[in-house]
């Protein structure tokens, strides 16, 4: 076996141009598959990460205007979320896992002599889980005690910190919101966010609902954010919310304009479908290239078998069985393909490393040689090699020894 491989390598060394041309097909194919899929996966991961900046599988709700007259009310009635609505829904719809009201307003903020206006958002502690508001090391998000004790604490976006305190300097400092001092208990970590409502999280300030209402006493909340206990039941949850709400505010259960729900799982579904198709397309393009490489190998193997007809005849004459010859030529095909694959992988890894040095992260993210891609590529190569080697190897093993030995 080892001897066999060494002999193949010797043969390859002797026929340099032929070897190069043969290997080139497989190298080219390997590089194509790996790079195309690496790009595809990286772009998907990048898009997915920015999308999750808003939160994963959440529903954002707004109150709207009725569009169907119902129970004696005319259509066109304005509805508003009111204090207690979040608790009401939590109570009525068991499928809800997390829910938080969100009150917001634009306020003047001051730190020492720096003044600027920002959006403040009053939310419950569970808002952090839904909206991916992760605090940087050392800080934390708002908690139940803050809520209960109406503490004057805020969690701020990283841009707020940078503008008011300078990068990395905000934690534990005091910030003045319309003249009232608040302590910064947490700063948002760097994150990407490609969609938003009420502005980006990096520019926002978060405070407990109780604190906010104590100061401003808003009658209506701006919106609510909720997430199903189990993502699979999101659709059912939305229906249940619509019904519960229609009951409470007496609008027609089919009135789709009374309550607006933005379901981000739909974006997710679209993203998965789109990139699924995109990556299949890239994969197919790569596999096509590999198949062309496989055809190249197959051709070369036919030539090799032709050249070694006499050798095969000799081996058969001194007792080599058919399957041994078959195995020998399949092995040889695999050695060539294996060599091409290894070189292809090395080149791909080089290109991936180089590309990651380029300032393209914003668009394509970080390329990685994903183990799944690597394994898939190898499995495809093995199948193509088997197909490429089978013809020549069976021809070799089926040669008539009498004819072969006289060649």
């Amino acid at each position, binding site marked *: 076996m080892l001897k066999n491989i060494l002999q193949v390598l010797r043969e390859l060394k002797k026929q340099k141009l032929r070897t190069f041309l043969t290997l080139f097909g497989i190298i080219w194919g390997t590089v194509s598959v790996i790079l195309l899929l690496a790009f595809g996966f990286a772009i998907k991961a990048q898009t997915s990460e920015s999308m999750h900046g808003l939160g994963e599988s959440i529903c954002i709700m707004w109150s709207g205007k009725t569009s169907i007259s119902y129970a004696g009310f005319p259509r066109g009635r304005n509805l508003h979320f009111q204090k207690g609505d979040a608790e009401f829904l939590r109570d009525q719809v068991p499928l809800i896992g997390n829910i938080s009201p969100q009150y917001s307003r634009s306020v003047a903020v001051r730190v020492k002599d720096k003044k600027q206006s920002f959006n403040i958002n009053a939310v419950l502690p569970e808002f952090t889980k839904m909206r991916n508001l992760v605090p940087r090391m050392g800080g934390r998000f708002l908690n139940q005690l803050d809520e209960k004790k109406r503490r004057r604490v805020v969690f701020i976006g990283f841009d707020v910190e940078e503008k008011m305190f300078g990068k990395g300097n905000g934690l534990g400092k005091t910030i003045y919101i319309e003249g009232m001092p608040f302590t910064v208990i947490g700063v948002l970590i760097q994150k990407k966010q490609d969609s938003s409502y009420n502005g980006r999280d990096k520019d926002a300030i978060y405070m407990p609902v109780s604190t906010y209402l104590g100061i401003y006493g808003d009658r209506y909340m701006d919106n609510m954010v909720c997430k199903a206990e189990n993502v699979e039941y999101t659709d059912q949850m939305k229906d249940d919310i619509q019904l519960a709400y229609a009951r409470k505010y007496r609008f027609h259960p089919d009135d789709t304009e009374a309550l607006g729900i933005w379901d981000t799982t739909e974006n997710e579904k679209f993203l998965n479908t789109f990139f699924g198709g995109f990556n299949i397309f890239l994969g197919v393009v790569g596999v096509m290239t590999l198949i062309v490489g496989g055809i190249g190998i197959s051709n070369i193997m036919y030539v090799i078998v032709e050249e070694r007809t006499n050798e095969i005849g000799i081996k058969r*004459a*001194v007792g*080599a069985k058919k399957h041994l010859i078959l195995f020998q030529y399949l092995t040889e095909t695999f050695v060539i393909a294996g060599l091409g694959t290894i070189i292809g992988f090395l080149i791909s890894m080089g290109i991936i490393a180089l590309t990651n040095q380029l300032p393209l992260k914003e668009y394509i993210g970080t390329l990685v040689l994903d183990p799944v891609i690597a394994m898939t590529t190898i499995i495809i190569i093995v199948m193509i090699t088997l197909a490429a080697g089978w013809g020549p190897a069976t021809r070799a093993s089926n040669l008539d020894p*009498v004819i072969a030995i006289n060649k």
Partner: protein
Amino acid sequence: MIDMNNIKKVYDTGKIQVEALRGVNLQIEEGDFMTVVGPSGSGKSTLMNIIGCLDKPSEGEYKLNQKSVKNFNDNQLSEIRNQDIGFVFQNFNLLPYASAYENVEMPLLFAGMSGKKRRERVEYILDRVGLSERMGHKPNELSGGQKQRVAIARALVNNPKIILADEPTGNLDTKTGENIMQLFIELWKEGNTIVMITHDPRATKYSEKAVKLIDGKIKNQTMD
């Protein structure tokens, strides 16, 4: 040991059918030294290929050790060629990239012999044919006579029941041919069974049986 009864071989080349053997009867006993002579195209090589189980007869019965070859499948025939037959060809038929040692070792590899035993056996045989000094040489580094010795060693290495030699001295000069013929005679005297296609008078002198093939038929079979 070998019993051939009305062996016929027809090559079907599409339009025309070529009858290479037209009813050959032949018996070979253990320890025989048989020579086969005849003009080219008389079917000598076809006969050798059939005896050596490289080819199957179209008609007739060939029994090797009382067993009819007809019923063997390809794997069994390969085993027979490996274990019971030793081929020596006119043009040596050595693997060009392999050393003398590796060429001789090849049948043992196909037989699945273990490494240590293999080494002993190959060295012993190469020594027997007088090539112990040239084990590592490739065929293109060997003279014609040395190449044929390697081929003979390869034929002998599995201790075959019969050695088939197809004009083994045909490609050699007179003196070298003489040495090779001498080696065959020694091997025969040691108890090997040999069938040889040759026109060499030295061989016919020693051989107990001489078969003359003409047009695919045995013309005369002399018995000493």
